[in-house]
C-alpha cells in the first residue's frame, strides 16, 4: 500500500496559545451547566422496562385464577445453575381442569443461583413460568433469597392467555360427547 503523506499545518499563534480552545471549552461546559440533569433518581424514579425483559422468574395464573404449572419439572431439568426445585404433588379430585392431575406442592427458585437466562420460560409447555419485570431483589440471608411458591405466584400475578389450551380441549371433548361417536 502506498504511503500517503499527510500535510500537517503548523499551528497558528492563537492555537499555540491554547486560549481560543479554552474559551470554546468553557462555552461548552457552561452550556452543560444549565442543561437539566440526565440522572434517573433511582428509588423514586424507575426505568421503564422494555418488553421481553428478563427479570426474576415468576409463576403465573391463567385468567380463571388457576395456577398454570403442572409440575412437569422441565424447568427444573433445564435450569443451568439448578436454581429451581419442584416438589410435585397430586391435585385433589374436582380440580378445575380434569386433565391436569399434578400441581406443584413446593416450587422454590433460589435467586442467588438464578442467572436470568430465561430457559425455564422457554421450555415450559404450559406457559406457566415467566421472567417478568422485577430486577431489584435483596434479602438479609440466603434463606430469604429463595422464592417459595406463594411469593412466585404473587410476583407472577395473572397474565392474559393466548391459547386457553385446556378450555379448548374441554370444549372439543364436550362437542365430541354431544355429537356422539363422531366420525
Amino acid at each position, binding site marked *: 500500500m502506498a504511503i500517503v503523506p499527510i500535510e500537517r499545518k503548523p499551528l497558528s499563534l492563537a492555537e499555540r496559545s491554547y486560549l481560543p480552545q479554552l474559551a470554546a471549552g*468553557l462555552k461548552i*461546559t457552561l452550556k*452543560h*451547566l444549565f442543561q437539566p440533569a440526565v*440522572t434517573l433518581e433511582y428509588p423514586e424514579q424507575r426505568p421503564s422496562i422494555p418488553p421481553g425483559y428478563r427479570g426474576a422468574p415468576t409463576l403465573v395464573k391463567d385468567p380463571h385464577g388457576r395456577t398454570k404449572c403442572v409440575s412437569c419439572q422441565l424447568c427444573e431439568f433445564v435450569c443451568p445453575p439448578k436454581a429451581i426445585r419442584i416438589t410435585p404433588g397430586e391435585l385433589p379430585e374436582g380440580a378445575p381442569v380434569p386433565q391436569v392431575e399434578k400441581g406443584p406442592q413446593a416450587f422454590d427458585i433460589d435467586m442467588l443461583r438464578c442467572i436470568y437466562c430465561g430457559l425455564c420460560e422457554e421450555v415450559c409447555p404450559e406457559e406457566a413460568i415467566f421472567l417478568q419485570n422485577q430486577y431489584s431483589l435483596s434479602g438479609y440471608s440466603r434463606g430469604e433469597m429463595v422464592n417459595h411458591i406463594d411469593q412466585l405466584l404473587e410476583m407472577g400475578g395473572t397474565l392474559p392467555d393466548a391459547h386457553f389450551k385446556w378450555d379448548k380441549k374441554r370444549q372439543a371433548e364436550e362437542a365430541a360427547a354431544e355429537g356422539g361417536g363422531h366420525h
Partner: protein
Amino acid sequence: MNPVAAFFFGLPGLVQGLLKGLAVILVIFPMASLCTLAERKVSAWMQGRPGPNRTIIPWAAYIPVFGRLFQRLGLFQLAADGLKFLFKEDITPDTVNKPYFIAAPIVAMIPALTTVTVVPFGAYLSHGRVVPLVLANVDVGLLAVFAVASLGVYSLILAGWASNSKYPFLGSVRASAQLISYELSLTLAVLPVFLWINAPGSDGSMSLARVVEFQSQGGFWGGAWFLFTLPVSAFIFIVALFAETNRQPFDMPESEADLVGGFHTEYGAFKWALFFVAEYANMIIGSAVFALLFLGGWNPLPWVPLATFAHWVGLAGHPFWLGLVSIALFVGKVAFLIFFFMWVRWTVPRFRYDQVMKIGWNKLLPLAIANLIACALGIALLQR
C-alpha cells in the same frame, strides 16, 4: 453608637484584635467547606448529574419550602461531611515520621488563615471618606500575602517527606517545583499594578486597600479596573494563581491518575480534611487578591466607585448597611472567581508535568518580564 459597639470598642486592643481574627477565621473556615460542596455541585451540574441531594437532618424535613430546597442543594451534606471527618478513625500509618506527618496539615492551615489578615473585604463611608474593612491595613499588604502564602509549600514538602512513601514523595517534589516556578510569574505580574499606583512623589504602599482606592478614582484612567488597563498582567496572574493553588489544569501535586492522591495519599480523616480546607482557603485568598487587584475590589461596576454608588442608592449615611453591601459585592466577585476555578477544572485536561514546567519557565516568565517592561514604559509615559 449602640451598646454592643460601645462594649466592643471599650475592650483592650488585643482582645479586639483576637475577636476580629476569630470572626474572620469563623468565616473563612465555613466558606472553605462551602467551596467543597460547591465543587461537588458544580461538577455534578456540568456532568449532567444532580449532585449530593439526599442528606437531611430529620426535623429539617418539616420546614415548609426551605427544608426540601436545602436538601436538594445538598447544604446538609456540609454538616455530614464535617462530622464524618471529625469522628472518623484518624489513622497514622506505622512507617511515617510522626511529628512531621502531624505537623504538615497544621503548617498547611497557618498560611491559609494568616494571609486573611491583610486582605480587605469591604468598605464603608465615614465623613465622605472610604474606610476599608480589613484586619490589618498594613503597607506591606500584598508582599505579606506573597511571603506568607509561599510558606504553604513547606506543608506539601513535609507531608510528602514524612509520609515515607513514593507517591506522596513524587507529589511533593512536583508541588514544590511547580509552586516555586510559578511564584516568579505571579509576583512579576502584579508589579505593574504597584508601579502604577505608586506614582513618583506619592507615599509608597503595597497595601491592597490602596489598590482598590486607586481603582475608585474619577476619570477614565482612574475609574478603570486594572483588568481593563493591564489585561496581560491579569491573565498571567490568574494562570499563575491556578498553578499556585494546585488547581486543574496544574494539579500536579495530586494528579490522582498517576500519583494515587499525591502528597496527601497517606492522610485520612481530619488531617486530610485540613489539607482540603487549606487548599480551598488558599483559593479564596487568591481569588480575593485577584478581585482586589484587577476587579476593583468592592466597587460595584467599572467607573462606578462605591462612594458614587452609595449616593445613588442613598446609603451614604448608613455606614453599617453600606459596609454589608460592599462585603456582598466583594464576596460576589470572589464567589464568581471560585466558580471560574471549578468551571476551568471541568473544561481542560491536566497538563503533563514537563508541559507545566515548560509553560512556567519558557512561556509565562518571559511574557511576565516583557509585560513588566512594556507596562513600566507605558506608565512612565502616562505619568510624565
